[in-house]
């Protein structure tokens, strides 16, 4: 089984540790994951803002990079949704039947991390250790576009030491929405504040989700409020073990306090 890692552009430039967590986690589970260096971005920012023509070369680049893999694993529900549900639209728009065929080949093999772990590898207990009180935000695209259901929370519940607490209003959108976050910043932030309030109400010290894009938004609000709550990608939690706890800060306190000059 050849498995390619689709890191996503946000993780590549802003959250490389999440990518390293995926690599560490999958290797621990016996999967030799590869990173095709030709990959870039799935094109979702362009598609969801209406720039379909601009997304065509990006989708072409995507199918070229991942043509040879049985599975393309990605730590993002949103980018999985983009590949599985939107690439076809972009390919049809291009008028290139070759691209349409390539997308038909590659798109169904793109899987989100929790889908890959539970459905493909058939594991729920990944041997992680994370002794913290955690709440989970189901990101909209993983919840409604992919339908990952309870896979992420089953994975979290199996983590040793982890206490999963309920997030009020969990299924309501955090307000990120890609370029929505800047094109309609006021509404986006109004939604985000309510999400942040629910995270605080949950009593958790760590907010976990399957998309670093949504966490960039919620985490940015929580950080600005000096809330003392840490946000972490699901992969970072699942990669944590007693042995390498130091690398993900798993045993330390939540580190959102301000470091004064």
């Amino acid at each position, binding site marked *: 089984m050849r498995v390619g890692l689709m890191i996503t552009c946000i993780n590549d430039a802003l959250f490389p540790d999440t990518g390293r967590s995926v690599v560490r986690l999958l290797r621990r589970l016996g999967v030799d994951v590869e990173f095709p260096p030709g990959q870039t971005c799935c094109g979702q920012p362009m598609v969801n803002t209406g720039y379909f023509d601009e997304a065509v070369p*990006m989708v072409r680049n995507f199918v070229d990079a991942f043509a040879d893999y049985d599975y393309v694993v990605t730590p993002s529900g949103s980018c999985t949704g983009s590949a599985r549900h939107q690439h076809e639209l972009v390919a049809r728009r291009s008028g290139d039947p070759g691209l349409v065929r390539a997308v038909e080949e590659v798109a169904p093999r793109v899987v989100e991390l929790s889908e890959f772990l539970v459905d493909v590898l058939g594991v729920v207990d990944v041997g992680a250790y994370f002794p913290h009180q955690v709440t989970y935000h189901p990101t*909209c695209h993983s919840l409604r576009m992919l339908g990952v259901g309870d896979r992420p929370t089953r994975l979290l519940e199996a983590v040793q030491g982890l206490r999963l607490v309920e997030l009020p209003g969990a299924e309501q959108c955090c307000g990120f929405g890609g370029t929505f976050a800047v094109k309609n910043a*006021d*509404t986006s932030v*109004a939604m985000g504040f309510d999400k942040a309030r629910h995270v605080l109400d949950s009593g958790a010290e760590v907010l976990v989700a399957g998309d670093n894009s949504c966490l960039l938004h919620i*985490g940015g609000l929580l950080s600005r409020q000096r809330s003392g709550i840490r946000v972490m990608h699901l992969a970072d939690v699942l990669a944590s073990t007693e042995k390498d706890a130091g690398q993900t800060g798993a045993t330390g306190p939540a580190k959102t306090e301000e470091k004064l000059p």
Partner: protein
Amino acid sequence: MTATFVGMPAFPEAARRALENAQQRHNLAHATGTIREKRASVVAEVDEWEGLRLAGAAIKDHTLRHLDDQLLALESALQERGATVHWARDADEACRIVADIAHAHDLDEVVKVKSMATQEIGLNEALAAEGIAAWETDLAELIVQLGDDLPSHILVPAIHRNRSEIREIFRTSMGEVGRPAPDALSDDPADLAAAARLHLREKFLRAKMAVSGANFAVAETGTLVVVESEGNGRMCLTLPEVLVSVVGIEKVVPTWQDLEVFMQLLPRSSTGERMNPYTSTWAGVVPDDGPQEVHVVLLDNGRTRALADEVGRQALRCIRCSACLNVCPVYERTGGHAYGSVYPGPIGAILNPLLRGVGVDEQTDSLPYASSLCGACFEACPVRIDIPSVLVELRGQVVDAHRGGLPKPEAVAMRGAAWVLSSGTRTARSERAAAFAGRLLDKMPGGRRQGERRVLGTIPVPGPGTAWSQTRDVPVPAKESFRAWWSRTDGGDEA
């Protein structure tokens, strides 16, 4: 009445103003939360809900594919039963037809059944310009009309008001247009309803003409259907001599058997009830029983334009239940006025551009972007309108409408980003530059950190950076991208 949606700013600006209204935010969160829970519990009771949704969507799609035949069948069935059928291309034609009927009977007032089609065409304002008063009789529409306000919800147009605000509106305005509210009016819902009942009764008994819309029009028998909660519609449909119904051409369903599907879908989706209290059906004229002159105005007003849109035409399945509004996190916070139309919320964000066309005005073009694409609307829609997909399609149409000419900064940024991001080499190069900036920023004295990471406060450069960072911290770029790490460590074998 002077309130109007004309001249409303684009959604981001209108939303910004609406978000500042603390009372409205509170009212909306409470009201949408209550309806959401009611809907969820009655939908969960129906085992074959998904089957009903599929059936509803299939019936509507089939009808829309054969719309010409269905409309002609409806017309001849209506005529056979003594109704007069009018065809209206647009709002002006429809308003003209209604006004002419009122003039023919020398009337200066009509009573109205709650109707989205007549709101859409601005009938009340058009009739007022002709010296004809149109009295809204639905309780919520009455509140909006008396308050010189605008509707903010399809089903509950006064959802942005609470009961103490309604008491004030009744006390100040009822007396100006008819029977005043009692002096000792409280803000108890039963008291408010009683005041409205007395005020309206006078108008029902006096009215010679009523104007309605229709939730459905059954082609096989020429039957119009109005579904309501209060019974005020029933009063309008039965008491006056003349009845005029303005019906969007997408309201036609072929048979009564088809109607049965929607009578299950609609009440549960809209009010969260198993069955609505009043369902009125009528076909043409029945001698000596009810209105003796019945008119039906079949309204296009952009519907054929929407029908021509391959992706967007599914919006014509809409049965105006407003489930999508009640589950929408954007609507819950901004309310309906920010959408600048009688059709607010997710359905309004697609229906308005589809009916009016994109690339014409900034307000309409802003609507497809008034969504985080969370998908809650699609999940709730009883006729399975894939609103997120239509929103994305319409965004593409908005962008395409502005291609050619001087590109906007956003278009320049998107083209630049797409050029970089369509090549691994170019992406790696730009990431090296970002990582260099990340290392520099990390070394600068002062500032704040989240964990190990330096975070930036407000970025004082106008544009998306400020829009993001005014309220949200953003981490500086990582010192080394994942790609660079992988290449440096040859696949990260040491990890």
